[in-house]
């Protein structure tokens, strides 16, 4: 399949069909916590998109060169330490720890930037900005990418290069952005509504998220249909050979 088409399909599938919030149900904590105002929600979505892209790029590089079984850097170090050893170096037990460090580093970067250049946004984020570190959208994206990093020994089903990983991460962030902005728009409207007292706040937000998840089910199957439509057509030569015996 054409490279551009496959990348487009990956983007649509990540942002709409397998939306992080409405399909995988990850990232619910900021989704509920910071969806009170549209502008704050947009800021949060943009911050998550930025962090997830950086973290995904770094974790793909770390996994490919250092952590995966038989990764080149680790193998080189092993050859230096124990020349002639036939053991395969496998550091994948460290995956989670390394990813969390990478994410924390990226969040620190964003936090410093936002604090310096957007003080009001920094104030309205409050505790949720450092909490991006523990945002499951980001760790989930890194773990999804880990499954697709090409490994020398054991071939994976659908190997992603750094480009695919970056597109996946960016559109995972965009999907989260869409979800949180939609929710913030609805919640601003809800301020005029007579919601029953026990449901105010997180309760009604979860119910709305459920209805939105039902609505997003409408996109199911769009990626496979698009892939079928956009797939290169069979060469016309076969049609000619089929038509030839007729006359």
């Amino acid at each position: 399949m054409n490279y551009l088409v496959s990348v487009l399909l990956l983007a649509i599938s990540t942002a709409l069909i397998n939306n992080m919030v409405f399909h995988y149900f990850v990232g619910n904590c900021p989704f509920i916590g910071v969806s009170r105002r549209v502008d704050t929600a947009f800021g949060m979505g943009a911050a998550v998109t930025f962090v997830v892209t950086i973290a995904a790029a770094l974790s793909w590089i770390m996994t490919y060169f250092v952590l995966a079984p038989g990764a080149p850097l680790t193998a080189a170090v092993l050859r230096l330490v124990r020349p002639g050893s036939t053991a395969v170096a496998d550091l994948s037990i460290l995956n989670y720890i390394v990813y969390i460090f990478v994410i924390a580093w990226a969040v620190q970067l964003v936090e410093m930037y936002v604090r310096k250049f957007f003080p009001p946004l920094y104030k309205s984020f409050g505790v949720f900005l450092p909490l991006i570190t523990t945002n499951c959208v980001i760790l989930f994206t890194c773990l999804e990418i880990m499954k697709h990093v090409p490994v020398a020994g054991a071939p994976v089903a659908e190997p992603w290069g750094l480009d695919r990983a970056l597109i996946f991460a960016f559109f995972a962030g965009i999907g989260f952005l869409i979800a949180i902005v939609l929710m913030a728009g609805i919640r601003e409207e809800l301020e005029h509504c007579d919601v029953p007292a026990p449901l105010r706040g997180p309760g009604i937000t979860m119910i709305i998220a459920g209805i939105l998840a039902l609505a997003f089910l409408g996109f199911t199957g769009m990626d496979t249909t698009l892939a079928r439509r956009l797939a290169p057509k069979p060469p016309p030569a076969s049609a000619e050979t089929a038509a030839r015996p007729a006359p």
Partner: protein
Amino acid sequence: MAENAVTPIAPAAPPPAAASARAAPAKPAPALSVAPGPHIASGALTTRRMMLDVILAALPLLAVSVYLFRQYAVFQIAISVIGALAAERFFGWMRRRPNTLGDLSAAVTGLILGLSLPASAPWYVGVIGAFAGIGFGKAVFGGLGQNIFNPAMVGRAFVMIAFPAALGASAYVAPTLGVDAVTQATPLTAFKMMGSVAALKPLFLGMTNGSIGETSALAALIGGAYLCWRGTAAWRIPAGGILALAILAGASDLTGGSPWTFAHHLSSGAFLFGAFFIATDPVSSPLTPKGQWIFGAGFGALVLLIRAFSGYPEGVMFSVLLMNSVAPLINRWTIPTPVGGPAPERK
């Protein structure tokens, strides 16, 4: 919402000279226009009147459905309406609210839900749909006028995911064929699964299989025209939807896309029923004229997108729910400028 509508007794003041000198194009008024006082309340414009209009407009659909599905249609619609009324009273009682059955809004929700279900669905589908729709779609938001999503579509989405097998329309009574019932796939499903294209005339008249109220495009057009003429439905929403669907599907036809042309798209499935009866719900659709165009166009485009590319044969329900979720943002971005008023402040 409708009870608060007021009618100005003074004619609208001519715009000041400064404004007319600017030659600003006159913008259409928002749906709820409030002129400077004094005001008199218009006794004729009540929720009950609007809901009665919807029930009257649904009469052609009801007639076609009874003709096609006989007692099954009557049974399904009755179950849904009774379920919706019971749910409304039940949730009102839970919150110690006065009885709101008299404004007929719950009856209309049940009617729309019943019309959107297939005649062959078992009885509990209508009841559960009505309770889920009134409960999760309306009562948790505080009742009439405050719901974000169309309650009937919330209920239908709920039962569609809960009972996917029961939501396939399986048979209809064909009065002219001399048999008891005809079992066949709905035209949209048949096209999606097997690529078979239905004839245009029965699609338009409604002599096909489908959900109870969706078969006849003609009946939906008649009812919808009545709704728009009465002002109960904002005409811009169906107009935007039909335009968007026709333009997008027509562009696809011009490139030699599929045998399912834009005329098939317009007259098949629940599109016209949804555009006139469901998307125009005044509570969950935008209030501003420009917003209503955007809402309608988005609805039509999403219906086409879901029909053409997703795993579902029909996308009206999903499109309505998706556009409802965008409606608050559309409202916010399309606040109209009053003629002669100050330019809106840009942040």
